[in-house]
């Protein structure tokens, strides 16, 4: 565990979360959500939770994002908020 690294990732996490929730373009939101997934996966690896990091990399950053994008492409891309 490296404290500086920990703090930097945590701050980026908050930023990524806010961005992905405030973009109006849903596709962009989904992509930022993927970035959020990768960041948090880095965080797990940094905290020594390798198995969780692995799962998060496959699920959070991979499959979840793909599923959200599949839905967005089948519905509508713009949102009002």
């Amino acid at each position, binding site marked *: *565990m490296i404290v500086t690294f*920990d*703090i930097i990732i*945590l701050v980026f*996490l*908050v930023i990524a*979360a*806010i961005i*992905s*929730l405030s973009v109006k373009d*849903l596709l962009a*939101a*989904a992509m930022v*959500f993927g970035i*959020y997934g990768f960041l*948090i996966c880095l*965080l*797990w690896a940094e*905290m*020594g*939770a*390798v*198995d*969780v990091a692995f*799962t*998060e990399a496959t*699920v*959070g950053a991979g*499959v*979840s994002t793909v*599923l*959200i994008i*599949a*839905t*967005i492409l*089948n*519905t*509508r891309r713009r*949102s*009002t*908020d």
Partner: protein
Amino acid sequence: MEAFFKEAVVPHFNFWIYVIIMMIGLWSVIAKNNLIKKLIGLSIFQTAILLLYVSLGVKEGASIPIIDHHAAERSLVGDAGAINPDLIANPVPHVLMLTAIVVGVATLGVALALCQMIYKDFGTLEEDEVLQKIKALHDDV
């Protein structure tokens, strides 16, 4: 102020961030109008809980929860000091959170399926418009 910062925030930095991320998620679950945005918020909300659990299993300076082969073999022949628990991260929260991640993605999948059906039936994913159209349905009947 500085004393508060040193005593309450710095040693618990991870926990403070976990609360902040969770509140961002919860806020958007309640306040956002778009259903997909709500779901992204929900996922962020759930990852915040993962952050809580994983943070509480961290040990300063510890390694990953996989036992070194030599140390493991030595522990089998009775060398009590072969495995130092302080140098191995607590594996229990990791196990619990693997389950929670799986549950999260399962929920997300079902929710997205519901979103697609709602879009098919109402032609929109904005919550207020959906509710209006439902009200119109009520009035018809």
